[in-house]
């Protein structure tokens, strides 16, 4: 499951962010969020495999983070806000069970 390269993500940023004005960031990552409570239909419990952590950094600085639990729906969606004072590289990182790790970066240049 640590196959970061083939993991699909959607990151939505505004077309024209403005300096000092908070804008919404919406993220989704394709992941089953297997909660470890379901049966496979043959009486076996499907082992837990979830994303446990999301982090967003502006440059090197942590800006937003979240701890996720099995109560988060499949294909975890997280929307939050950022306020930037200038151009920056945003780093999005998802970490999870069984060594799952996926990272995306986006450059933003607020007007």
């Amino acid at each position: 499951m640590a196959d970061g390269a083939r993991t699909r993500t959607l990151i939505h940023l505004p077309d024209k962010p403005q300096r000092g004005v908070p804008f919404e960031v919406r993220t989704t990552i394709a992941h089953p969020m297997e909660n470890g409570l379901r049966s496979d239909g043959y009486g076996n419990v499907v082992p837990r495999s979830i994303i446990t952590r999301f982090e967003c950094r502006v440059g090197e600085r942590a800006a937003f983070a979240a701890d996720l639990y099995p109560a988060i729906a499949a294909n975890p969606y997280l929307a939050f806000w950022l306020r930037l004072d200038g151009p920056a590289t945003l780093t999005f990182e998802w970490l999870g069970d069984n060594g799952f790790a996926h990272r995306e970066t986006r450059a933003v240049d607020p007007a």
Partner: protein
Amino acid sequence: MSTRRHLLGGGSAWLLLRALPAAAVSTITLEAAVQQWAGGKPVRTGRVTLDVAPLVENGNTVPISVRVDSPMTAADHVQEIVVFNEKNPQRDVVRLYFTPACGRAEAATRIRLATSQQLVALARLSDGSQWAQYVNVLVTLAACIES
């Protein structure tokens, strides 16, 4: 109508309930989870808003959003908003960590709800104050243990 398939399906769901690993099922109550999070400091009602539909058709994906009106400056900002539930196998739903770089203390996600129950959003501000909002949700199709 009760077909063989229904009987088998119902039976395996019941067996699964009986066979859940102890570690996966939280035994603490919602209030205990809130107390643990609060760390002995007072929690007042207000400031934080938890938005969720009062009637949910499908517990597998329930949109929620949380927010606190805050200037989000270095001196006055929201540090953390957490959501707990009452009747899922675990009390924790999500923990969100904010910084002044967020500009707004607001976030949204989609969650699972095992049954009709109470949710609570708790916020911790940089001045140390702690706030809560409880919400009741009716769920018609449950999540979590169905295959």
